[in-house]
């Protein structure tokens, strides 16, 4: 795992407006640092993140996608993040069937005070992607091995 297979991975992060985006802002206010490989897209709720967007991003050239929302039970819209959680279970399974590594799609609960967690999540995610080959969808190769 020490080999750098993809030194500059591209990441799209979907952040919910109330928790994760505020955590990202707090990270800024606290002048924490993380790699610049991630572009964030803020949605009102993580429940707004349509699974289509995740595959759009992966097929469009992203090496990894992060979806971040409020902790379970703390969603600003009460149950939006549960919907996200459920969708992500199926999205990951589907991605695995396509030969996309599980690590490329990441769901994290980050509350507005968890700037450290935000930075840690971003840094570790990007670090992990550097050691993976470029995303198979992006690199024009679909699963070569039977998964089932």
């Amino acid at each position, binding site marked *: 795992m020490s080999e750098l297979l993809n030194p500059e991975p591209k990441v799209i992060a979907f952040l919910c407006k109330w928790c994760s985006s505020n955590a990202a802002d707090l990270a800024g206010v606290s002048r924490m640092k993380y790699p610049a490989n991630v572009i964030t897209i803020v949605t009102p709720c993580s429940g707004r993140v*349509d*699974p*289509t967007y995740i*595959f759009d991003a*992966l*097929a469009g050239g992203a090496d990894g996608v992060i979806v971040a929302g409020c902790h*379970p*039970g703390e969603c600003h819209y009460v*149950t939006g993040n*549960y*919907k996200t*959680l*459920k*969708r992500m*279970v*199926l*999205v990951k*399974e*589907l991605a695995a*069937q*396509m*030969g996309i590594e599980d690590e490329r799609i990441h769901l994290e609960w980050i509350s507005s005070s968890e700037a450290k967690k935000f930075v840690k999540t971003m840094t570790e995610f990007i670090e992990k992607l550097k050691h993976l080959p470029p995303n*198979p*969808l992006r690199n*024009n*190769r*679909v*699963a*070569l*091995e*039977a*998964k*089932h």
Partner: protein
Amino acid sequence: MKKIKLAVAAGSFCGGCDMSIINLNEMLIPIEEVIELVFWQVAADFKFEDVEALQDKEIDICLYHGPIRTSEHAEIAHLFRKKSKVMIAYGSCSCFGGIPQLANPYDAQTILDSVYTNGYNIDESGPNQNYMRPKSEYKKGRAMTLPKLLDSCLPLTSEVDVNYFVPGCPPVPTQWEMLVDIITNFIKKGELPPKGTVVAGETALCEECGREKPEEIVINRFRRPFEIDPDPEKCLLSQGIICMGPATRAGCGGQCTLGANMPCRGCFGPAPGVKDPGLKMLSAIASIGGAKIEAELGPEGLKKLMETIPDPFGTFYRFFTPEYIIKTKKKVAEEESSKK
């Protein structure tokens, strides 16, 4: 009246689409009066040479069914595109990839391996004792050309330009009524509908199905059709069965849901405006799974509930090749051909 020239060509077909035409019975009579059949291998002994001998665009309408699974299918598709004025993708396979596209997560090598070597019934005592593979030489010195199995199984649009789509596995007589309208209009007035028209319903299947729906649809336990005897009056989703109806184009008249008490599998392809019915349906199903008891189940419980849905690709993409696969697979093919 001038007769129009019609061809029925096929890629990797099962014969169901041909049967759907033959099954039209008396509906064929008025059609027969206005068409001249130039190609239909199931009906008569036509040869590809006959087609090749035709002028470009000499065929008025070509119905192409079956996906592009081998290099031969691609050749056939290109040949008929060249010779036809109007190319119609007939049946779910040529429209979206159909059932054969379920093999898309795997490349040709994996498929051949699993069929000829790794299959569960293949060993020394089984049918393929010698682990034989298709060969391009069947006897010493007697070579023949076998079409190449492609790494993908894609809809007709991946190879050629398509004018109209007639989805369905197979299409149903009501679609033929529309088709006949299109053909007669073409003969009489020379008019054709706009390119890309889908000859089917204009909404999602739920509108046509009419099974009784409860106030809210929530699934607390997913069931596969064999697990229960579904109430024939009530919405299948509300009974825990994954039905693709909400994301699938109407036009079949609810053949499965009403006719067979079975869920819709999505053979009519995406509802109008929907780009990716698989992901949209995945999202819908995930959203209504345990929708009213989310807090009680908690993250772990919800995860477990979702994991009871087997094989997401096979469930949500039974007939439809997602765009990202088409794009990726085509890029692979281009790359390979540029290497040669």
